[in-house]
């Protein structure tokens, strides 16, 4: 495992629980879009986007959770990363916010799905 080469940004408590001890995780109590904005700030700062911010077919504002991998190291601002994150933030506005209406078990399902999407990214990240 090549831990330390990437950082996990998440607002998903399940992801934090699972990775807290073994990975560099930044947990933020924020919305889906808020999380994407945090990712964008870091891309402006020179981090590289490693996983797609719109991972998963569950739509923004439908699921409240999002986890994204970015590089631990910083370089020149990566334009490709910037374009992807900007488009992703834009896309948030196309969907009505439904995040306030779920029961606990549905939220847990959303957390799980977000985790598995991230997990598939981690598998690729760790293969490097």
């Amino acid at each position, binding site marked *: 495992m090549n831990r330390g080469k990437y950082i996990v940004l998440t607002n998903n408590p399940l992801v934090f629980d699972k990775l807290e001890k073994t990975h560099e995780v930044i947990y933020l109590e924020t919305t889906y879009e808020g999380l994407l904005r945090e990712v964008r700030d870091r891309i402006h700062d020179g981090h590289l*986007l*490693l*996983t*797609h911010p*719109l*991972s*998963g*077919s*569950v*739509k*923004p504002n*439908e*699921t409240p959770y999002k986890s994204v*991998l970015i590089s631990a190291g910083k370089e020149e601002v990566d334009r490709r990363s910037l*374009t*992807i994150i900007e*488009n*992703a933030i*834009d*896309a948030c*506005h*196309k*969907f*009505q916010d*439904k995040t306030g*209406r*779920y*029961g606990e*078990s*549905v939220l*847990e*399902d*959303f957390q*799980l*799905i977000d985790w*598995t*999407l*991230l*997990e*598939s*990214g981690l598998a*690729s*990240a760790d293969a*490097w």
Partner: protein
Amino acid sequence: MRLEMGHIYIKDIQFASESKIEDGILYVSEEAVKAVALEDEKIKSVSFDIAKPGESVRITPVKDVIEPRVKVEGRGGIFPGVISKVDTVGEGKTYALKGMAVVTAGKIVGFQEGIIDMTGPGADYTPFSKTLNLVMVCEPIDNIKQHEYEKAVRFAGFRVATYIGELARDLTPDETKVYETCTIKEGMEKYPDLPRVAYVQMLQSQGLLHDTYVYGVDAKKIVPTILSPTEIMDGAIVSGNCVSACDKNPTYVHLNNPVVHDLFEQHGKTLNFVCQIITNENVYLADKQRSSDWTAKLCKMLDLDGVIVSQEGFGNPDTDLIMNCKKIEAEGVKTVIITDEYAGRDGKSQSLADADQAADAVVTGGNANQVVILPKLDKVIGTLDYVTKIAGASEETLREDGSLEVELQVLTGATNETGFNKLSAR
């Protein structure tokens, strides 16, 4: 490869004491299909129902739709690596039961989506309002993990479809179609003047509930590869994808992939249909780069003149779609891409999450955010409990008169990105 597809038209489905097909009528022994479904101990109970076109019936939450088939000649069997042993399929003779489908339903996650209306405005949008549907609603054992449940339902659907398909083994098809592809060299010699065309199919591969399997292999672990387009007709590709009902590809769509069939229509006439290339839609950006690089490389190595690229899903795959299109065009291979749009309820938002000028030939399956009112129907197969929670449904979803206000997103197959429907947008 040469595959003979025998079509057996099903005119009606009825429950009966014995399963059989007679005069185009499928008789299903409920007891027998239940036993097939319950072979997996993770499924606690299953109920079967029949929904016919025009009936006041709503099926939800739909997981997969499968067309029953049986392989009567040639290597392997239907759903290789999943139900049948691993063996290369796509040649010989296969029978398909046309006009019907096995529909699996059940709440795998709390926000499970997918509606099939057999009548009304919803029926105009979902292609599965036109099939006679044998619906199975599976309940899992207690405390099962979601991914185990998904897998159990996925396999139960394939088992039941295979069981039904087997009933046709000794029948005589109503119609036979022959699909034949050439090897590279044969094709060059046989059709020296026709443009060499392939179909690039992007498979959903992002993780749990977002997976597709190729001969049983999880598509996120493949590098782009080549298939004979006849392989899909024997179930080489199956769906494990439960999210984004409107633009996910149910197994039915994989079996009947419209791009494959419409390219075959033109094969030897206006073009030479060389092969199908499959690639994936992973979440890791470096995976995307590798897969799109490889896809473009294969197009180049195969000396293609043109390709049709189809997408599956929303957001993340937009990036794969544009990367594929751009890189394939850069190799001098002409592309047409098929997608759908999320342009907002008012149609004013940017439809895709990525764009490039290389994508100058786009076919769209329509705006998935369009609002549609679904009237109250007499019967629900499955459960409506979660309809208010499904994608595209809103606060006011359940209106006073019992009708539902939803976005097209929730209707199974409504904005399919393989070009399965007539819906479009401008």
